[in-house]
């Protein structure tokens, strides 16, 4: 199919294999599969990340080997965690009014609550409750971060994995600037 316009390059392709053997590439991708990877937590955007991080398999067949997707997902996640444990992702954390900055490895945390609790402990303050509409309510602080594009974003808006991969530094904002955010 794909080779029709290609002057039959396949015939001249260098491969490791006996001449005449064909690679049994049965890539059956029924359309329903795309929506089948149901994940319960909105933050664990597994299906997107799987394509990014895992090496391209040779010739995947649907449902083979017969391992349930829950199990596959758990093991995949472990692998990712392991990789980040090894590499780490340290970002600077500043807090308005604090005399010096700190550094934390954001890959240590599993999700936003984990991170926020750690920040609260580190700087001895209280963050308040996050809501999509109003940001952080009930506190004069708001955690923000600088993303890859250089923009300052409110922590919590995007899925956790996306945040981890795009966060360059953290800043805990205080006071009037925070109120400004709440009015947006």
């Amino acid at each position, binding site marked *: 199919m794909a080779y029709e316009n290609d002057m039959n390059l396949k015939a001249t392709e260098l491969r490791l294999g006996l001449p005449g053997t064909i690679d049994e590439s049965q890539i059956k991708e029924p359309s329903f599969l795309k929506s089948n990877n149901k994940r319960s937590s909105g933050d664990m955007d597994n299906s997107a990340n799987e394509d990014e991080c895992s090496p391209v398999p040779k010739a995947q067949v649907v449902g083979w*080997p017969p391992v349930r997707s829950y199990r596959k997902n758990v093991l995949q996640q472990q692998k990712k965690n392991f990789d980040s444990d090894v590499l780490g992702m340290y970002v600077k954390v500043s807090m308005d009014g604090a005399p010096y900055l700190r550094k934390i490895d954001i890959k240590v945390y599993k999700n936003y609550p984990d991170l926020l609790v750690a920040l609260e402990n580190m700087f001895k303050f209280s963050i308040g409750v996050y809501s999509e509409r109003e940001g952080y309510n009930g506190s004069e602080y708001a955690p923000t971060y600088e993303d890859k594009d250089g923009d300052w974003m409110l922590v919590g808006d995007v899925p956790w994995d996306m945040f981890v991969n795009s966060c360059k530094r953290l800043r805990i904002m205080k006071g009037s600037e925070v109120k400004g955010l709440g009015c947006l």
Partner: protein
Amino acid sequence: MSEDEELPDLDGGAARSINSTAVSGGGGDQNYVSPSPDQVLENVLENVLYFLTSRHDRNAASLVCKSWFRAEALTRSELFIGNCYSVSPGRVTNRFKQIKAIAIKGKPRFSDFSLLPPDWGAHFANWLRAMAASYRALEKVYLKRMCVTDEDLAITAHSFPFLKELVFVCCEGFGTDGLAIIARECRHIRVLELVDTDVTDDEVDWISCFPDNVTCLESLIFDCVETPINFEALERLVARSPSLKKLRLNSYISIRQLYRLMIRAPQLTHLGTGSFNTSEIVAQSEQEPDYFSAFAACKSLICLSGFKEIIPEYLSAIYPVCGILTSLNLSYANISAEQLKPVIRQCHKLQTFWALDSIGDEGLQAVSVACKDLRELRVFPVEALEDVEGPVSEVGLLTISEGCRKLQSILYFCQRMTNAAVIAMSKNCPDLVVFRLCIMGRHRPDHVTGEPMDEGFGAIVKNCKKLTRLAVSGLLTDRVFKYIGQYGKLLRTLSVAFAGDSDLGLKYLLEGCPKLQKLEIRDCPFGDSALFAGLHHYYDMRFMWLSSCKVTRQGCEEVARQLPGLVVEVIASGEEENETNEYVDTMYLYRSLDRPRPDAPRFVHIL
């Protein structure tokens, strides 16, 4: 093939006996003069039926005569529906009036591996409607591979005020909203178990919804629920649940939190440890809890699982219970043989062991030395791919067979295998009831001799006289099916993939295995003439599944025509209505007493 926890034996069962009575013309009453029917009934009820718990016995009893049929229907309290579409809910509620416990299974097992499009069916709602009206005293509900919504859970909570046990295995469709309703409203709930079930995160703190007073909870299993948990609420819940024996936590529970729960519940018999990891950054100097002593306090802990993100260094904490464990599930713990050995060599009472292949042949060697009482072994792959080097092989299988002679059930994923090892196991482990071998490379032969794996599996069916469940893999010709047909006389469940040469393969099976109930086949060259070879047997089966084989639509139609009591579903796997496709994507057939299900989606054609 793949993991499949055995159904706890909820006895009762409609399909078989209903089917028999339908065939024998059960229906309206005739002029029937019985010698003092009340007398007969009384005797029967007192002497026989009262003691009959097994559904197979009850089915037999119900066939004796009409009064026995009626008496049995009145006294049966547990119902088992092996296929939710084999009988209509109305027919069941008409016949059985006193049901206290029900088990319903829905989708075919291959749906676990994405071979069935979503929205195929198995909606609990249909059954719930009928049950809510008739079985107000219902106490136990067990569902496997069913679609359940939050609304279903709400209706369940409202309709069954005496509900005690709710178990979901491989289900989907509801979220923490639904769990909150159950927690809040089912005042008598003792058992709430979610196993391999997809639960959406509605961001509801369902743990806090349990009533504040002392609960009668005996079992709380939620290790598959991938949502954060309000730990303080959970801790309080455990503290006020003195009857709690089974607790399986999800991976959002850290090992520190596990510790706090364990010291509140030393009476636990079954524990799922959650992540077994620490999410907090612990300063080096900070005191870690004494996990070892927490385990030491659990004098009755016989079943241990979890370890979803294990830090192997923490594994030594479980030493105090190794000596009493009968079941250990390390199948999410990516640990090496060296890390396993100090644990497993203490587990001399172990009967069930699940692990990842990361332990390698060497780890299996340690198991075979230490666990002489082993009945069930499952070895899962860390990497479920076809073209990788696998850490377990025929060496591990052989060593297990030599050390664990009482083995009854095995599930083994590997990359290479030999006939010799399989033959050895067939001789060393004569008690095998379940043999499931998954050589992950398709069509892979014996890697030493280059031969097909026919002889190995042949030896299994021949030597393991108690075998009822088999899954085959590797390079297989029609010969293996000849062996299975010849020797597999007790075989009830068979799983086949990428095997066989011709129609003969399937013919051997259908003609040779009289007890075959569940047959699932994918990617084999079996066609219509093989399909017809089973016409004499399909009414006695729970189902047959054929996907990516060589059956045509006409073949399926012919079967449907000849067997009106059978539902033959042709399921398309893609969106394109492929008229040019010679063969059907998937055929799924099952017997049914009632007309075909009205809820079939558009990609399912019922012939």
